[in-house]
Structure formats: C-alpha cells, structure tokens
C-alpha cells in the first residue's frame, strides 16, 4: 500500500505579514506544521513494520524541504516537494490543483492531511484536493483503520461521534486528537538525508504558469488593517453586588 501525507512548512516564531505583498512573511525559519505531524504519525502507525510506503508531499519554497526532512526523520520513506516561483501566492484553487497533480503521480491508496495549517488556519484543503482527485473524503478523523480495500474512520462532529467507511483510494483528514506524534530518533534524523527527496517544478507536473500562483488564484487580499477594538470595556469594583452586575451584563449580551 502507498500512503501519501500532505505536509506544510509554516513560519516559526512570531508571524508577520509582509505589508508589500500582503502575504505571510515566510522568510524566517520554518517548521513542520504540527497538525501535519499527526498525519505523518498516523501514516507511520498504519505502516507499522509492513512494506507500505509513506510519501510526504509538500508545496512550498525550497526550504520546505526542512519540514519534509522532519517527516522523513519520523519514518516516512520518501519526500516530494513541488517548488516553483510561479506557485507563490497560490490560493485554495491553485494550491489544490498543484497538490492534486503531484498526488496523481503518486497513485496513493490513502492520502492523509492534518487538521489545519497553523499559519493560514484553513481547514479546507483536503476537500478541494479530494474533489480534484475524484476520491471520497472524510475529515476530522480521530481513529483510523484500514481493512482490505477500505478505510474506517471514527470522527467527531458538533453533535457526537460518527463512524464512516469509504473504499480506497480515499482522502482522510485527521484531527489532532488522533495521536501524539513521535519524536524523531537521532538515527531517524541522521538517516533522513539519505532518503529520496524529489523537487518538482510546475513543468514537471504539467501545470501551466497561468494556473498557479496569483495568476491561478481566484481570491485576493485587498488591504490589511487593525482588528476592531473590543468595544467598551467595563471595569467595576465589587460593592457586594458584583454577581448581579455580571448577570445583567451577560443578559444584555444574550449569553444567559
């Protein structure tokens, strides 16, 4: 079996938006998005000692290889990075297109995503990728098992727990409740460099420049501003009636 895990390299430390491009300043050091570490961990658990292949796939600048190496250090077998200047500034439409193209080449039985990207806080990528791949998708997986040709998932929704089944090949997004990602061992870290790491350009994927980056995107960032102030903050001293004052305040806001 082959399992592909989509991972993202996200900026470490305090994030800043570059005012000139209005995009996230990715020039600092990067790290493996910690939600994707759950996905890598789940893939490795499914792999166990079998000869299932785990491939880590990412889209980003060259230094995204750092995150891919972390996935390799954890135990993934191979890494694929789609890296091309023309891909910078891709929104969901463009990103899902590029990732889907890379995943098509892999012909994975199972494609895993993490819960969200800590930089863009988006919890949407997997559904778009699954649509492009023409595969069933299940999200918010907190338990995952593969049996014969299908995957069984327990997920948490706002209303409780659902158990779902889908035939492979399928796309599954895991929640951070699914596991505790392992620390890469020293041997794993040292062995990561030797594992295959491919870097693909748009041309390698057969994707036209007009379909990637800003040109291939359908959303724009127009301006950046400050958040609205929290409104009138009130501060009172307890004169014996604070409890009632709080209840009145909550009632006013229709919170009780």
């Amino acid at each position, binding site marked *: 079996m082959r399992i592909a895990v989509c991972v993202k390299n996200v900026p*470490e*430390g*305090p994030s800043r938006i570059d005012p000139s491009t209005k995009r996230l300043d990715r020039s*600092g*050091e990067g790290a493996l998005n910690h939600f994707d570490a759950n996905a890598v961990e789940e893939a490795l658990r499914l792999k166990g000692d079998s000869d299932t292949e785990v491939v880590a796939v990412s889209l980003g600048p060259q230094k995204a290889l750092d995150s891919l190496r972390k996935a390799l250090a954890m135990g993934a077998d191979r890494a694929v990075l789609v890296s091309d200047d023309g891909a910078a500034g891709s929104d969901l439409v463009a990103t899902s297109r590029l990732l889907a193209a890379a995943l098509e080449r892999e012909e994975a039985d199972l494609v895993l995503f993490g819960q969200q990207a800590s930089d863009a806080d988006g919890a949407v990528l997997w559904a778009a990728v699954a649509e492009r791949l023409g595969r069933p998708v299940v999200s918010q997986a907190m338990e995952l098992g593969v049996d014969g040709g299908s995957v069984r998932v327990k997920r948490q929704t706002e209303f409780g727990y659902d158990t779902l089944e889908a035939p492979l090949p399928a796309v599954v997004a895991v929640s951070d409740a699914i596991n*505790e*990602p*392992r*620390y*890469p*061992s*020293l*041997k794993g*870290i*040292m062995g990561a*460099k030797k594992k295959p790491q491919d870097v693909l350009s748009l041309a390698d994927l057969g994707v036209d420049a007009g379909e990637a980056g800003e040109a291939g995107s359908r959303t724009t960032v127009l301006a950046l501003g400050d958040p609205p102030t929290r409104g009138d903050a009130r501060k009172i001293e307890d004169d014996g009636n604070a409890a009632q004052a709080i209840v009145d305040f909550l009632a006013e806001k229709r919170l009780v």
Partner: protein
Amino acid sequence: MSRPSNFPPPFSTADYVAEPTDPADERIEVGVLIVGAGPAGLACAIRLGQLLEEHPDVAERLGDVPVAVLEKGKQPGSHLLSGAVVDPRALRRLFGNRLRMEDLPSFGLVPGESVYVLTRRAALPIPPPPPMRNHGNWIFSLSQLGRFLAERAEEGGAMILPETAAQRLLVSHGRVVGVRTGDKGRGREGGELGNFEAGSDLVAKVTVLAEGTQGHLTGVALDRFGLRGDDPQVWELGVKEVWKVAKPLDRVIHTMGWPLRPGKRYREFGGSFIYPMGEDMVTIGLVVGLDYRDASLSVHDLLQELKTHPKIRRILAGGERLQWGAKTIPSGGFHALPRRLHAPGLLLCGDGAGMVNIPRLKGVHYAIESGRLAAEAAFRALQRGETPASALSSYDDAVRDSFIWRDLHEVRNMRQVFGHGFFVGGALASAMTASKGRVELGKLPAEPDADQPLLVTDRDASYPAPDGQLTFDKLSSVFASGNKTRDDQPNHIRIERRVPREVAELWAHMCPAQVYEVGAEEGDGTVMVDVAPSNCVQCGAITAKGGRLTPPEGGSGPEYTLT
C-alpha cells in the same frame, strides 16, 4: 548574613559521567562530535570541513558522518545571544579568501562610538577607554551569525542535529568517547509519555565541547578530569532587548554608572551597551556581575529602569520592542581559564572554557578562533591515527600561542579590581590598560559568586512599573524570547528548595525569566522556593548563584532570532 553557597544544589558530577550503555550496534558513531552550534562549535565544524575536503583519505576513515554538531536549541541561533560587536580577525582566518566580511550577515562596521557615565538624569561623555575602542569591528546579531555559520558548516559536510541535548559525558577507560543525548517525551514526574524517545549514545573519536557559558558537560568535564583553573569562574548576567526604532542610531554606545551603585559594599560591576542594527533596529542591554550582594537586585528590572533615562528614552522613542533575551558571560578571565583545555578524547572551546575579555566585552572572536584551532588539533590527531590520549595536547599549545592567550593575559586583573568599587576600580583599570597589563598587582583574590554574603535593600521599590510600551514585566519578556517550552517535562533546574528568605529573594530577583518565586514559609526562618521551569531561558545565572542548570528536553528554551 546568608551566602547562597551554604545551600548547595542536589547535583553530583558523577551522575553525568558514564560508560556507554546502548548495545554496541545501536550506538551512533560519528568522526568528530561537537557539542554546541554556536560560534566556537560551528567554526570547528567549518574548519574540519575545509581540512577533510583537502584530505579525503582522512574523511573516509571517519565513516558516514565525519562531523556532527549537537544543538540543544530549536535550531542554530535559538540559544545564541550577545551584543555583538565582533573583532573580525577570527572570521577572516576561518574563511580565508573563501568569503569576505561583506558576505556575512552583519549590520556593517561600527560607525562611531561614545561612552557615557550616567547619572539619573545626565549622561557625561568620556573618551572611550582603550579597551572599548571598536574601530574596525563589525556589528552582528550572534543569533543570525549562528544561522549563517550553520549553513556554511553543512555545506562543508557537517551534520547539524538540533533539538538534541547532550546529557551525559561518555567516558571509557579514562577517555572521553562521546556523549549520551537526552530523553524526550518524559512527563513532569519523570514517567514516560506516549511518545517517549530515549536518548542515544553518540560515540566519536574526538569530542569538542563548545557549549557556551555554563556549559553543562563542560562543567562536568572540568571536575571529572581535574581541569579547573587557579581562580573559580565568575559570571556576569546580561539582559538585552532588540527594538525597532524610528530614528537610526549612528554609533555604538557604552555606559557605566547609573543605575548601578558605585559603593564597594554592593559590588555592582557592569554597564550597558546600545548598538545600531542597520537603519531601523537597535539593541540595548545591561550587563551586571553576579558577584553583586543585594538580594533585591534584578538585572531585568535595572534594564527597564535604564530605559527611562532621558538620553535612552530618546533613542527608543516611537519604537517597538521586538525581542528580549538573557545570558551569562564568564568573567573570571585569564586566571579562571582551565589549567588544560584538553583531556583524552576531549577539547574545550569558547565561552564554556571562559575565553572572554570583559574589559573589551568580547568573546565571539576567541570562540571562533578556539574552534578553528580545535579543528586543526583534532584533524592532526586523526590524520596521524593517534589514539588521542595526549594527541590533543597540541590544541593547548596552539591556544597559548594565539591572540586568545595574549589578550586575556593582558587584561588578567581588570575584572577583579572592580571589586573595589567603580571609582577605585576604574582608576586601576585605566592604569592597567595604559600599561598594557604590565602593572603587576600580583594575583588578586577571587571568590565564587555564590560565596558573596547577601544584603537586602529596598532596591526593588525603584524599579519602574511596566507600562507595556517602554518597560516590560518578566513574563511578557519571556514571551518575547520566543520561549514555548513544553510544560509537561521533568524540572531541569537543581536547587535547594528550602532556604532562608533572603536567598529565595535573591533567586527570585536574579532570574530574568521569573523561574523562582518565594513560596510558603516553613516557620523556622526558611521558605520554600517555587520553580516554574518552563519559563527558563537557560541563561545560567542560577549556576553562578547557588544552584545548577542542566539542559532540559532538546528544543526547549528561547527561540532567539535577532539577539
């Protein structure tokens, strides 16, 4: 009055020295193991890369990983903090004609400089005393330089292993054979969590300790091999901030005097530095000797107070604090250097070995030079295929012949004279400089910082209340260091938990990261000390003043980028 040294921490060197315990085929073998991805360790790795490229036959004998560098921080640079105004001579020697100074990520040459003696409201300019003249030196962020050097080291073939702490020194048959790395995934009580990963035995032909100030295994090695020098080592604590500023600063500034007190009984030795970092950033720091006696002295809060001085307020006006950090600097100088810098299988470099010139406030270039010399000595030993029992002694010879030794010898008593207070000390120091160290004062007495008897004043009444714009409290400063240490891990700090109140107060004020707090009273004049280890930015002050810092789980601590 109490002395912190009367309440020693529960720490034993023997706990940190061991034979390898992993089965032989599970030990990880490397050629040369360097502990610490700072300027010393990376210079060593870079120089080794150069030598191994010229001598592939030697490289072959070192196996798959000829050079490995362990770094306990998140990445190289995460735990690096300095001023820094760097003397370029060591960088030039390291890179030769491969790179010029312009190719390094600096903030340019020192554009000009001033020295002031401060009072509460005034700043009296004095001509820069000779040790403080910085013409021809370059301004760097050491954290940035560290990242740059790490990339060069990797290009040269070194393998850098971040988030990896070196916990134990591996010694076999009297020889250092490597280190054992720290465990990951233990809970607060020491139990194994779901993702527990045990450390590994990393064995090497030569181990270079370049751990920086208060190096954990360096301290262990100095004891294990009887390497401590004539004088006990002493330290200064530096706390600094990096600011975005509205107006560019056009010079390097050093100050003395306020807010430190000149009287002999206080023993407050130190000063501040303010360096431009390009057009739109400035770094400001305060350095104070840890031989101070007032239990209510807090270097962090004195830095906040310093910023309220009218001259300094003007420099920071309209600006925004970007980062904060703290670190100790070894200040014992020449007489506190280890009696030998090597042992079988082992070499000691940089700040860990105490190679800092306090009057010039410089140590980065000594670190780099010592790393380079260590690489050459290690290479010579490996080339000759010698069992490095005494083969590494050429390192000591090389260091003694270098500018490291010459410089440190010249200023050998400078620091000690300031124990006599600022005015007397200043006069003596000037006399020494003018004579290039030939004024012979004999060897002046030196005591460990923790031996200083404590006194208690109401110093803390004058610390400014943090306003969140110019002045800041400790917790928000810890946040500004990038510290996101995992909470649920064992406490890495060793202190006696039940001490007289003034000792607890000393630690609570001393620690810039608010790790220690005065806890419950025990009724017999002692109090409990509450510890919040995840605040720790690993500055090392506690080790100087009566406790002992050990490395927490790899990846913990600050994530400096601009310090």
